[in-house]
């Protein structure tokens, strides 16, 4: 493949994830669709129990036209590694092996298998589409649910502002394995996502792509704002675009001025209950994080 950047004009017109049953405006399906367009037809994909598997393979409606298989919930990393090892042992050439899991399937129940895969340095790409809760089971808190999120297991009330913990820092945890390549993305910045995937394709070893992907159903947001919200998350500093490569962190986008966090939060049902003081906690945590990022990743 050439060094030319991938964009809407030159990306394949083929669709590999089509006719699925995801909710209207689903951010996760934007991530899966675009990822498979970059990876192409010669791809083995493994998706654990979760939204994308639930909406993509309901017999006889088969929405994946690349090879695809559902994994046990904790098993994405191990199963896609097995696929890669089996294909290699059979002498199959010129293929990609990709695991695609949600935030719970990655940061919680699938964490161990992912760690094992990175530790082995298996030639796989692992994509985490992060919609910040267990959406397929009905919006329960995961390890990537941020502070102040109302979910069905972290209700907001007089005593609690919803979730009281910050997101687990998956990107840096993955990087701490000294992984070959890791990157954070957002479906709000699709071109950045496409080109990081293109980079991951060329890596001989393990790549991890963490893509922020909105969920109108779980976030209580209009179906048409999914891309915009995922962009605003980056622009207000609650998410960031970065890479880890050759042992170094690199910040890809360093906003001169953040847009309003309050505006981002209060346009979503999951944050509508937040009081000024809760929003201040979120802003304080954001600033602390960015101080470190700017100090170390620039």
């Amino acid at each position, binding site marked *: 493949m050439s060094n030319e950047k991938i964009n809407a004009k030159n990306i394949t017109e083929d669709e590999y994830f089509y006719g699925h049953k995801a909710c209207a405006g689903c951010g996760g399906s934007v991530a899966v669709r675009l990822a498979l367009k970059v990876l192409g*037809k*010669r791809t*083995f994909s*493994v998706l654990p129990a979760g939204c994308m*598997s*639930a909406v*993509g*393979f*309901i*017999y006889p409606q*088969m929405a*994946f*036209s*690349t*090879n*695809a*298989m*559902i*994994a*046990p919930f*904790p*098993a994405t*990393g*191990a*199963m*896609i*590694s*097995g*696929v*890669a*090892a*089996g*294909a*290699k*042992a*059979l002498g*199959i050439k010129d*293929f990609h092996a990709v695991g695609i899991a949600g935030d719970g399937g990655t940061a919680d129940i699938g964490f*161990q*298998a992912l*760690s*094992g895969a990175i*530790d*082995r340095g298996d030639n796989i790409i692992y994509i985490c589409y992060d919609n910040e809760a267990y959406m397929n089971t009905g919006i329960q808190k995961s390890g990537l649910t941020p502070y102040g999120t109302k979910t069905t297991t972290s209700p907001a009330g007089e005593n609690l502002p919803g979730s009281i913990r910050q997101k687990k820092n998956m990107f840096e945890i993955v990087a701490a394995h000294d992984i070959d390549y890791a990157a954070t993305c957002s479906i709000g910045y699709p071109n950045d996502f496409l080109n990081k995937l293109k980079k991951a394709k060329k890596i001989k070893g393990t790549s991890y792509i963490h893509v922020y992907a909105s969920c109108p159903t779980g976030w209580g947001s209009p179906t048409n704002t999914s891309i915009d919200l995922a962009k605003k998350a980056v622009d207000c500093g609650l998410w960031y675009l970065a890479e880890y490569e050759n042992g170094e962190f690199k910040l890809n986008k360093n906003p001169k001025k953040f847009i309003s966090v309050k505006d981002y939060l209060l346009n979503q049902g999951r944050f509508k209950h937040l009081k000024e003081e809760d929003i201040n906690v979120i802003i304080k945590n954001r600033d602390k994080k960015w101080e470190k990022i700017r100090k170390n990743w620039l």
Partner: protein
Amino acid sequence: MSNNKCFVSGDEAVALGARLARPNVISAYPITPQTIVVERLSEFVEDGSLEAEFMHVESEHSAMSAAMGVSSVGARAFTATSSQGLLHMSEGLHYASGARFPIVMMNANRALAVPWSIYGDQSDSMSQLNSGWIQVYVEDAQEALDMTIQAYKIAEDGNVLTPFMVNLDGFILTHTYELLNLPNQEEVDEFLPKYETENKMDLENPKSLCFSSTPLDNLEFKYQQHMAMINSKEVIEKVDKDYGDKFGRYYGGLIEEYKCDDASVLLVTVGSVTGTARVVVDNMRSEGIKVGLVKLRYMRPFPEEKIIELSKNVDKIGVIDKNISHGYEGTVFTHINSALSKMNNSPKAINFIGGMGGRDISKEDIKEIFKSLLTTNEDKEKTVQFIGMGCEIDE
């Protein structure tokens, strides 16, 4: 047939059998008393005597999941586990059989915690009978090697496509050294050709695997799985014969009858205790006592028809269980009784629970079992009896 002799442990016999079966990928996590199997296999990969990928997975759950990934592209997968590890991969056991992936796994039968015990019993695999795996239980190292090879032949049969678990009693078999015949590679290659299947991902013709079904179709897929297990009975018998014809060792297929012909009582055993029971049967037969032994080789598929046939002319059947469903009875016994319930005049069956957590089952224990089976005091006889208790219990 050209066989080389070697002196190895049961674990090593499994590793040698696995090497002869040429798996493409081995994914395994260490657990006592299975470890030697995966140590040897990693050595075979290192020294080049086995051309395979060796995956160091971080758990048994991942060992099974990786094996499924391997099988999903049409490659041959091998793994091994024991006890807690088998339970840790329980989700994957059901998954692999549902997916119709003919993975072969050795299980070193070991007690389940707690109390912790690294020693043998069959609580682990007996708790997984509903996972859809074929389960064979072997008696010695030679059978362990032979069954590791036969396992692939049976599991990969187009009418079966069902994963296969080779069970060896922990320590008693896994760590005991025996002299065995090692088949040569060319002959094994003739017996077991490369795995070919349609049940795989294919870059030229992309597939969707392990999909979801609605209530409209789920039962049909499960029915297929049920029929595949039933189909395996015939395949097991055929493979046993073909293997015997080629390598000179026949095991009897689903069960082995030992001196059952004119027996008035039968003892049913599973695994290594069969060897001890053989000696007792021989001794008692030499005294003219008509006792017989049924070595139950397979728990899945369950050889119900054979059990019924053998039970027609006997007075009583004893069943040794190295496991118990607490508050009820041993799992093998439940199965035997289920078979007997389909007869018109079934003999009475008595369950003997023993050998748990590494407790020995001695020749004396087995002789006592036979004696009690031969004595008619039906009114007083308890259906479930514990053998080899180390202290007194209230009857």
